[in-house]
């Protein structure tokens, strides 16, 4: 018997959906065995996961709050990935966006609320954009490896906030506890239909980015450049400017997400402001096929999984590690199924030719 891996012709949307559904079923099946081993009923655990994510208006709000940064950051990452610029520095860009917005929030709290929030959004965008422009410039000018540069910039951003939190920005009223002061009312995103305004921004961004990526000249140039450097040159695309622009947008959007997290969720700045969501968004951007509408769907499902995962911890007394394991299992199957959308495995039952070895 002999196994071979064969490249598939492009799969249709329908085949893709089928493969995904099979992957999810297998994930649930495998996790089910694990849950059985824990001595619990898998069906009721799954039901309560869904229940935990969508079971009440409050839970839905919580799920949405988790989904907002995922959606926005995924959109930002998608722009860079479309250009095959592997921006894994969203985490740092989120942090720098949050930092710039917080600077205004902490120092200009007397400014009227709409004006201050607008200024914070702009500052957040610029902070992230700057953090995105650094690797873009290095890449465009000297062809440095953007993966390494964006990754390292994450740590610089994180350590910078740590320094501020434990040093110059430490709240003098916190009785020695290392935390930055809470934002005042003026610097906090108001709620709209139960959830902070971030969701409205996310919805607008989805529409804008959809149009940008599919119908704008710049979006077209980014896609062409991503597919073929030579063709882009040949078509008269200004490569240098396009790389910089794409990363300005990518980093800027991530920075805006940072502002939203600081202003709408944490209501202050701290070292956990991004909390790994910049990395998670890479997964959601990729699973969403870098397409804005799909990114929304994937992000919401992902948020639901996280939310449901924490719910079953309290409902069934499952440990946090076990809940993570279930999440990981689902992710593993879904990401792994990507292989089957590109290749198929052929099994030959005939015996291969006998080798005449010398």
């Amino acid at each position: 018997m002999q196994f071979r891996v064969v490249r598939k012709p492009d799969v249709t949307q329908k085949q893709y959906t089928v493969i995904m559904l099979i992957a999810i079923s297998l994930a649930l099946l495998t996790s089910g065995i694990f849950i059985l081993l824990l001595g619990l009923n898998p069906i009721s655990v799954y039901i309560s996961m869904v229940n935990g994510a969508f079971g009440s208006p409050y839970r839905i709000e919580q799920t949405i709050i988790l989904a907002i940064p995922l959606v926005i950051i995924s959109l930002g990452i998608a722009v860079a990935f479309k250009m095959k610029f592997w921006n894994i520095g969203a985490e740092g860009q989120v942090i720098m966006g949050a930092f710039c917005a917080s600077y205004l929030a902490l120092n200009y709290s007397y400014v009227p609320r709409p004006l201050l929030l607008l200024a914070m959004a702009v500052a957040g965008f610029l902070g992230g954009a700057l953090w995105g422009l650094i690797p873009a410039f290095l890449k465009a000018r000297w062809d440095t490896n953007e993966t390494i540069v964006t990754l390292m910039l994450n740590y610089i951003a994180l350590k910078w906030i740590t320094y501020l939190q434990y040093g110059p920005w430490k709240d003098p009223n916190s009785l020695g506890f290392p935390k930055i002061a809470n934002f005042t009312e003026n610097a906090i995103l108001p709620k709209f239909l139960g959830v902070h305004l971030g969701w409205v921004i996310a919805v607008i961004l989805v529409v804008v980015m959809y149009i940008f990526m599919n119908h704008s000249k710049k979006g077209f140039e980014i896609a062409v450049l991503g597919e073929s450097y030579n063709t882009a040159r040949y078509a008269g695309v200004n490569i240098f400017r396009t790389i910089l622009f794409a990363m300005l947008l990518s980093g800027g959007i991530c920075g805006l997400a940072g502002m939203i997290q600081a202003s709408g969720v944490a209501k202050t700045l701290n070292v956990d402001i991004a909390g790994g969501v910049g990395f998670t968004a890479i997964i959601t951007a990729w699973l969403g096929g870098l397409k804005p509408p799909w990114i929304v769907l994937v992000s919401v499902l992902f948020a639901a999984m996280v939310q449901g995962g924490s719910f079953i911890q309290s409902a069934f007394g499952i440990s946090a590690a076990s809940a993570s394991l279930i999440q990981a299992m689902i992710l593993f199957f879904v990401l792994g199924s990507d292989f089957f959308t590109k290749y198929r495995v052929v099994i030959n039952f005939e015996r291969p030719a006998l080798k005449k070895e010398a």
Partner: protein
Amino acid sequence: MNNGSAYVSMRDITKIFGTVRATDGMNLDVAKGEIHALLGENGAGKSTLMNMLSGIYIPDSGHIFIDGKEVKFSSPRDAINAGVGMIHQHFKLVDILTALENILLGQRKGLLLNKKEHETKIKKIMDKFHLEVDLKKYVYEMSVGEKQTLEILKTLYRGAKILILDEPTAVLTPQETVMLFRIMRRMKEQDCSVIFISHKMNEVMEIADRITVLRKGHTIKTLPKEATNPQELTELMVGRPIDLSIKRVPKVTDKRVLKVRNLRAVNEEGVEVLKGIEFDICAGEILGVAGIAGSGQKELCEALAGLYPVKEGEILFKGENLVGKTPKEFITRGISMSFIPEDRLGMGLVASMDMVDNILLKQYHHNKGLLVKRKPAAAKAQEIIKKLDIQTPGINHPIKNLSGGNIQKVLLGRELDSHPELLITAYPVRGLDINTCLKIYDILNEEKQKGVAILYIAEDLDSLMGLCDRIMVISNGEVTGIVDARKVTKEQLGAMMLGKKEDEYAV
């Protein structure tokens, strides 16, 4: 010839890729001591069939017999053990090793200990087949012809008695081709079987003993050379009668559109790749460019499209010096460049995008505002499909799924659609079958009559001599001559391609 005397016999071979039956119940018999040519259009299944004989692909169904015994290959190693070796178009050699090291590479026997012994064995093979290879020479120092000879030697050393050559002459000069044919005849004398894949009718008629014509995955017919002629073979290949001659349209004007003066450029390593190139092209003229692969054709094309940094010299387009302008400015002035690289897709097209987006590539600069307009591009795509007879499931189909010929037509169609005044086209018929070639020559002639100046870079001397008004020969980044295409001979072109200056001949 009946089945019994066939040394290699492939029976009822079927291979399916996705939904395409690349070979559909193909049969092939090759005798010992025979040069057997495989002839067919693009997509006829020649390479697929040979890849199965050499163990690269595994047939979905069918049987392969060698010397009467059935064989099943699951890797090229199995095939070479059974005596089947294939020389691919792209050589599989390691540049930084010597010829000897390349031959011994991957052999399991103790390499260092027996080097002497291997060397004598290799020398014996060289004597037997009259191969001339300097075993101590590094591959990066070798010419294309030398590399090919080395590939053949390597394959013979590994025990090949059946040698498959996939379009071996595509990269050779006429002189090197003569050398190759000498080697092939010698192999035949030594009772080897040689399978020769080619598009070039004259070569097939010169060297082959028997010819098998394939069409669309089927074996059409096997004929002894003496019993056939190019006209018949072409008709079998295409499936209908066809006129083979390349038409030459008389030159239209004497108005010089492009003057290139003392054009110099250096590559990234600082080596001069264009050494003072000078030529003119008139409106309504086709100037051919001949040269061994890598003589500066690519750099010249790119320089003329604003894509390659020019160190010195002038590109005067209608009197305006374009040196230092951006590619976009070249495009807006009516210069169109289409370069078909070896992989056919490297420049000019985006494989994963559909026809509309690929056409948009040359149009979107003219769209006003921030957004692109796809409707006009879609209309253009339909137009080009009709005009050039492109086979595609639709305009929204990724072009990478089209066949090579159709992809090239998309590129050419788009470039012509921009109504250029100067059309630079490099290898537009690379790897295409005769039918499509003729179609493309017709299109170029049409453009010529419209008064477009055409720089036509090609490998095939027949097409250059048949289509062009004048031929410029470049060798190692230098112009070795600009000659009248009607008067020059292939031998003269070949000598100039190797660096001999034109004035050494009385043309």
